[in-house]
């Protein structure tokens, strides 16, 4: 073991939820360690403009908002380390969090590791990532001007991405495994009226085809079993999110999708271990809701630490 540290609160993850937790616990004078990982800021750091976070009437960039939160947490004395938790042991007290060989002890732990884009699980999808397969229309739509693009998914984000793609692409095919959209009506209506967007229902992507770059997709109709090929230049994946909870498997109760704990609330199956942010948000996924749950987790952790010290 190369290093160790003893803290009252260890926060794993440093998006808006984790940093809000850190601001609260550090300000409450609890010794606070934040394991930020290398991706400090979480999803919001990947968002160019944030216009709906209260207090910034002119909007603010995602990276700037994260930087301000980070500074605020440090100002109150939180210690930030840009390492990733590689394992945890919640079976005894103090709670243990490992970063490789290093071991950190905490009275309470707050997990705010967020979520990542769900993938189809195809080998071809990884091979063509950045070579025709992509997950962010805002980032890459402009490179598909005049091209034919398949958008996979049927929720709000898929339909929004299809609408964004239609500003540049020649044709947009929305491939959805169900027979109707789960996106909100307002988005669905806009997509249906958009002449560039066509819907392919009850259909899954079986394979992404191409030599060096994407040249098409092999599709399978879930109702009829029909298999066919659609030529395209790009495949935009918008099939939802999966929580970053692999490292906690076996240590905390979680459902088959990797979600820890109940739909609402910050508690887990282990006393003194709390969750917040997108990690446990199946629905709202806003900066302000992440911050809200980060605050609740911090207040619960603070209360737990004080109970232990009595």
């Amino acid at each position: 073991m190369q290093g160790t540290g003893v803290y009252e609160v260890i926060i794993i993850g440093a998006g808006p939820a984790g940093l809000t937790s850190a601001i609260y616990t550090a300000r409450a004078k609890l010794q606070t360690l934040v394991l930020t990982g290398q991706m400090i800021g979480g999803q919001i750091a990947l968002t160019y403009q944030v216009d709906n976070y209260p207090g910034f009437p002119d909007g603010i960039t995602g990276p700037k908002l994260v930087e301000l939160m980070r500074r605020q947490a440090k100002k109150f004395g939180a210690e930030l380390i840009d390492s990733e938790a590689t394992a945890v042991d919640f079976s005894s007290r103090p709670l243990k969090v490992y970063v490789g060989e290093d071991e950190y002890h905490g009275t309470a732990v707050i997990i705010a590791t967020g979520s990542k884009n769900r993938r189809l699980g195809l080998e071809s999808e990884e091979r063509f990532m950045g070579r025709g397969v992509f997950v962010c229309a805002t980032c890459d739509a402009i490179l598909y001007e005049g091209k034919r693009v398949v958008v996979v998914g049927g929720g709000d984000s898929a339909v929004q991405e299809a609408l964004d793609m239609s500003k540049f692409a020649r044709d947009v095919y929305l491939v959805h495994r169900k027979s109707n959209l789960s996106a909100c009506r307002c988005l669905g209506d806009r997509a249906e009226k958009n002449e560039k967007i066509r819907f392919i229902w009850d259909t899954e992507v079986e394979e992404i085809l191409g030599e060096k770059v994407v040249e098409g997709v092999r599709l399978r109709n879930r109702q009829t079993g029909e298999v066919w090929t659609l030529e395209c230049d790009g495949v935009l994946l918008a099939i939802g999110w999966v929580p970053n909870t692999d490292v906690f498997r076996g240590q905390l109760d979680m459902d088959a999708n990797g979600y820890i704990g109940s739909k609402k609330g910050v508690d887990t199956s282990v006393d003194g271990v709390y969750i917040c942010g997108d990690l446990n948000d199946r629905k709202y996924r806003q900066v302000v809701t992440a911050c809200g749950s980060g605050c609740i987790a911090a207040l619960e952790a603070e209360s737990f630490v004080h109970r232990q010290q009595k």
Partner: protein
Amino acid sequence: MSGVKELQADDWESEVMKAESPVVVDFWHDMCGWCLKLNPIYEELPERFDNVKFGKMNILTSVENRSIAIKHGVMGTPTIKVFCQGRDIGEIIGFRNRDDLIKDIKDILAKREDCLSHSSPLE
């Protein structure tokens, strides 16, 4: 001062294709979150490499910039490409942390001698 040159389509030929030393180019734009994360790491690279030029091209600045990116096969941002004597000798797609990025660029540059001795500049 940063050693990364902001490239435009107008100076692409002189700065990249006709450069004597290898040129590393980051194709990016400011609506791309991963690009923004990569920027500060990329800005530190020039001091880590000798005889290598570093540039970045914002693909939203002009249609011409975007056309250059598309012509060179950029299909996602950020994409870093390495050019040597007018030849595209390798690419790194997506975000990397500092150590991985340096290693990946070094791996591509290791092909440089082969490139210098066997290539002739592209049209």
